[in-house]
């Protein structure tokens, strides 16, 4: 009796396992569910929604339109959801999308906390996750996995490029105002290393909650520290309010503000009088060359705004994903990944991009300076290019990687 019971359990387990195998491996040469589904998971209404949000959905759709809405003869569909900046909500949507909605790839995912959770789900379900919005370097280090590709920027790139430039211009003592979650910590760490390496010194830091209502207290501590530079290890609405409050407290007379992750939407919201002269490290600016201008003007016609590097990144990651599907002749995740990681990426957003074994997409990075109101010729004419940082200097070298996928 007991034996029969055991056998039944065993049979059950085998059946389940077989089912799992079956659901994971679509036969090569085919499109699962006869449709390629791109899922844009982003902050639709919170403090980061101007960086990605609805704009990311539009960007993904632009990539689909470039493909004529079809790949390998099957339709392409873009769906989207709001993760509300909550890791559990993000992970749940990802699980649902993969399990029941037949989503082939997840795009964007602003907010590092959410992206780390979604990355785990992608790895567990063996589906592709192309991160444009989140910045934490943990995605390609401790928490790296074969299915997650970090596409646009990370805190190492923006922190190092800005940190180095500021120290070289004399800002050698630093105080950090840091958002208290994965991304902020990561940004502060990476920038601190760059500052110290360039001969600067970090004299202190203060943590603030995400979406803090008032920054005056942190700025007062930064002022008291006597540091020459106040590094803002935060993003979006938090950075905007830090800069605004700093102006009221007369910080700029004695100290320099350094934004370690600044988006064009932030500059646009604050205006040039408050932001002029600031250094900005970015993977994208609309006015770089003919390709970026063409894409950005088309985007602006649809949304009324110029794309942030995240939105441009979502467009590019969707486009390159579809190219990889076409080249692989299937949407089987492993086959597409193999294709993607072997490709050289070239489009309006990226020139000669390569995906490394740790999942980091590397490409040249840019250091900009915010124009003065007199230099600017229009509402979006905000940056002047200071230098182009080659890929191998902008991103963390593989030799320092803490990702187990990297063979040393």
């Amino acid at each position: 009796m007991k034996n029969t019971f055991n056998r039944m359990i065993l049979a059950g387990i085998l059946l389940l396992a077989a089912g799992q195998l079956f659901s994971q491996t679509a036969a090569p040469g085919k499109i699962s569910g006869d449709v390629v589904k791109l899922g844009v998971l982003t902050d639709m209404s919170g403090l980061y929604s101007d960086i990605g949000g609805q704009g990311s959905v539009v960007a993904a759709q632009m990539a689909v339109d470039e493909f004529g809405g079809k790949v390998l003869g099957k339709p392409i569909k873009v769906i989207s959801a709001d993760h509300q900046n909550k890791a559990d909500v993000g992970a749940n949507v990802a699980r649902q999308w993969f399990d029941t909605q037949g989503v082939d790839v997840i795009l964007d995912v602003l907010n590092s906390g959410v992206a780390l959770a979604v990355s785990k789900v992608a790895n567990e379900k063996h589906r592709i996750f192309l991160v444009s919005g989140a910045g934490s370097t943990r995605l390609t280090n401790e928490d790296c996995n074969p299915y997650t590709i970090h596409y646009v920027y990370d805190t190492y790139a923006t922190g190092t490029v800005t940190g180095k430039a500021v120290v070289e211009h004399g800002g050698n003592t630093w105080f950090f105002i840091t958002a208290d979650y994965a991304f902020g910590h990561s940004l502060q760490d990476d920038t601190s290393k760059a500052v110290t390496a360039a001969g600067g010194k970090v004299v202190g830091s203060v943590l603030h909650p995400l979406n803090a209502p008032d920054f005056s207290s942190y700025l007062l501590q930064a002022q008291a520290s006597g540091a020459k530079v106040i590094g803002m290890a935060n993003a979006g609405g938090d950075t905007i309010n830090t800069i605004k409050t700093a102006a009221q407290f007369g910080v700029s007379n004695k100290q320099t503000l350094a934004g370690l992750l600044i988006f064009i939407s932030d500059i646009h919201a604050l205006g040039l009088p408050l932001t002029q002269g600031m250094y900005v490290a970015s993977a994208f600016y609309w006015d770089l060359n003919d390709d970026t201008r063409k894409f950005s003007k088309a985007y602006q016609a649809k949304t009324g705004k110029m794309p942030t590097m995240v939105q441009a990144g979502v467009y590019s990651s969707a486009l390159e994903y579809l190219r990889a599907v076409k080249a692989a002749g299937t949407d089987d995740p492993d086959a597409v990944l193999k294709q993607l990681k072997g490709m050289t990426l070239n489009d309006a957003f990226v020139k000669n991009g390569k995906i490394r074994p740790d999942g980091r997409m590397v490409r040249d990075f840019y250091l900009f300076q915010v124009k003065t109101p007199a230099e600017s010729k229009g509402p979006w004419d905000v940056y002047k290019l200071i230098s182009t940082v080659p890929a191998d200097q902008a991103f963390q070298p593989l030799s320092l990687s803490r990702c187990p996928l990297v063979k040393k």
Partner: protein
Amino acid sequence: MPEIFGVPLVALLGQLMLGLVNGCFYALLSLGLSIIFGMLNIINFAHGALYMTGAVFAWIALDQFGLGYWWALLLAPLTVALLGVLIERGLLRWLYALDPLYGLLLTFGLALVLEGLFRYRYGVSGLPYAQPAAFDGAFNLGFMFLPKYRGWVVVASLLVCFGTWALIEWTQLGAYLRAATENPRLVQAFGINVPAMVSITFAVGAGLAGLAGVLAAPQTQVSPLMGTNLIIVVFAVVVIGGMGSILGSILTGLGLGLIEGLTKVFYSQASNTVVFVIMALVLLMKPAGLFGRER
């Protein structure tokens, strides 16, 4: 330099001053909430949205009509108060006979609608509202430079808070209001128009939120999210002060601002939880709040 627990006294005083500025906003907002709850028994979840609306109206006044800060300070609260009357007459009125829960749900929904509308129109990065030129510069208080505008915020909100309190406690109108709360039917029997009193009350509460919004506009980014960020703390303030206690909510608002300021010096990570820890402690010891009466 004298120190307290390893923190220089000067830094401490500076943080306390900033705490007072934040406390003023808490006080102004919780005062409005308290009035509305005390008189109408409605928990107004749309209060944060009305605060945000006040700030956005100030921005619109400047951007579309070229009306400066002082006009905004007058007109925006009046417009928000008018909006309050519409909400009260058009919607809330129908819910008085029902469980207070319905009022809560309705106002919560209203808050979502208002924020959604402004988000749809302007996005979340917010709109810049320049500080009026009269407030450029800072006062040297010896221990810190206080931007003149923040000094003005403290003076203005303290005046408004205690003015409103005096109005309710010491004037004929205030007496009518308080009587109408205790026993609306009896007061109506004396020939006083109770429904109008109720509308006025809601309008005043809403107007106070709008005023706080205009005061906040130059010092933070005018954004659809600015109300949500603040309102949760304000609710905690009202609960700690005692639901419906007007003086209680003013004093608690100021006090909690100070405590929050101190927390930012000693352990800034806890600054947004400390209010709720205090709330839990107060509820354990005095369920009606510090200044509230058991009903």
